[in-house]
């Protein structure tokens, strides 16, 4: 399973766009890239998943370059309620969670 590297933490202000980049140099050909969000005292929540190029849903966008060795989760116009831990995972259904990125949104 490919290992992922993310920033430990990020700070932002309400209304800003936040981009969290994840490095996964050893991604395999059939691996998908998936992002989860976790609030304190809750289970992780699926945000978005992609294989290549760009994926967008009502919550976020996921940008994946051609070599797939990294990916960027983009959260448009964050609010205080987006303060959470964000996990980037690579692989199949055996989810291997790294340390994640603690995103703090300030007013």
């Amino acid at each position: 399973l490919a290992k992922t590297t993310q920033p430990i933490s990020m700070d932002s202000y309400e209304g800003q766009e936040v981009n969290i980049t994840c490095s996964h140099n050893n991604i395999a050909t059939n691996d998908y890239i998936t992002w989860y969000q976790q609030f304190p005292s809750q289970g992780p929540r699926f945000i978005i998943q992609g294989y290549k190029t760009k994926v967008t849903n009502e919550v976020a966008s996921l940008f994946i370059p051609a070599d797939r060795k990294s990916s960027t989760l983009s959260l448009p116009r964050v609010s205080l309620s987006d303060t959470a831990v964000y996990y980037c995972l690579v692989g199949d259904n055996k989810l291997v969670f790294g340390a994640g990125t603690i995103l703090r949104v300030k007013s």
Partner: protein
Amino acid sequence: SAVISQKPSRDICQRGTSLTIQCQVDSQVTMMFWYRQQPGQSLTLIATANQGSEATYESGFVIDKFPISRPNLTFSTLTVSNMSPEDSSIYLCSVELGAGTYEQYFGPGTRLTVT
């Protein structure tokens, strides 16, 4: 999506005892997973539980310590046996709705404290 409930939501147990955690899903799913999240840490996969077959355990987790049942497509249990304070964690179940989607939905977790 899926609605997943877990019971109990939290418990405080004495060392040496066992606790069984229940996971209920509002739809039939093939694959269910059990995770552990120790305080301030990330999640670690304990085992995969498919209906009709033995659970598959990850390295570092054994059936004698964490027996799992999967009697049908909507329910599973995880037992934490012969508990010690090191077992104090949040235990979460998750489900994958469609084979090959790699998209999992998690329950709210069971917060276990062993004294």
